[in-house]
């Protein structure tokens, strides 16, 4: 049950990402026509539609809807800043986390079909994360990107979903690994380590302060633990 629900949720995540990347490709090419990023985003939108079908297969059937909301940028931002906000949230944070999650799953003994699916997805997620860092690198030369600092906690909250909430014991079963799902305690530690060792240093490299983001994370995971068993 947990396994099917997890893959169904992923199917919605993939659909949400497909919509977002297709839209961002158009938005970014409007103000940065020489950027290689829009082509990467269009390719990513196609990848996500393929991932959607793979996730539906492992969920046991068709899945409707999207996981969150398509547009996530604060309304006060101008179009260029909003596109940067979404790209950082979706690619630099969420896709980077996806790479770490899938890599972590692939280091375990999953069922053969699950393994095949994870392999296919892992290959694509690497370029989805990179296109975010590519766009941020370009924009850091054009805009004052430090405005993103104060929005990082909102981005993290959306990416974490229910990961730090209390959980049922079955959500932490090592048996989940065979089905391509991380037990919740492992999911949390992967999420936290990826932020502290990849995402935060990456953002800081572009002069974006991560103080608020680090405070947000410390509140939720004093020792990378978070809330315990329900």
């Amino acid at each position, binding site marked *: 049950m947990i396994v099917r629900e997890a893959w169904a949720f992923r199917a919605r995540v993939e659909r949400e990402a497909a919509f977002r990347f297709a839209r961002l490709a158009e938005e970014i090419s409007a103000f940065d026509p020489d950027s290689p990023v829009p082509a990467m985003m269009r390719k990513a939108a196609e990848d996500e539609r393929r991932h959607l079908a793979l996730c539906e297969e492992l969920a046991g059937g068709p899945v409707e809807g999207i996981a969150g909301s398509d547009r996530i940028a604060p309304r006060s931002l101008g179009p260029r800043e909003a596109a940067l906000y979404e790209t950082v949230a979706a690619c630099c944070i969420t896709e980077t*986390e996806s790479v770490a999650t899938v*890599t972590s799953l692939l280091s375990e003994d999953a069922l053969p079909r699950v393994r095949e699916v994870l392999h296919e997805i892992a290959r694509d997620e690497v370029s989805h994360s990179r*296109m975010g860092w590519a766009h941020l690198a370009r924009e850091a030369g054009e805009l004052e990107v430090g405005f993103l600092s104060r929005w990082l906690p909102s981005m993290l909250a959306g*990416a974490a979903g229910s990961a730090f909430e209390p959980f049922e014991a079955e959500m932490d079963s090592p048996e989940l690994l065979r089905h391509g799902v991380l037990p919740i305690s492992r999911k949390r530690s992967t999420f936290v380590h990826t932020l502290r060792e990849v995402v935060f240093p*990456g953002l800081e490299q572009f002069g974006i302060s991560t103080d608020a983001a680090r405070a947000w994370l410390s509140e939720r995971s004093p020792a990378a633990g978070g809330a315990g068993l329900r």
Partner: protein
Amino acid sequence: MLFKKLFKLLVVGGAILGGATGCAAKAAGAEKKAAAPDAGTAADGGAASKDTGGGASGW
């Protein structure tokens, strides 16, 4: 170890794909930059305090 590799593969690799003009400019500190409209000066005044952002759902 894994995370160090991910940093190089994703962050460094991505910045290079972007053309790295941003990085180089940043390091030099010489590029002229436009201020982001969100430097606390939202056009809709009072609504700005209620302005919220979200995140992208992930696996």
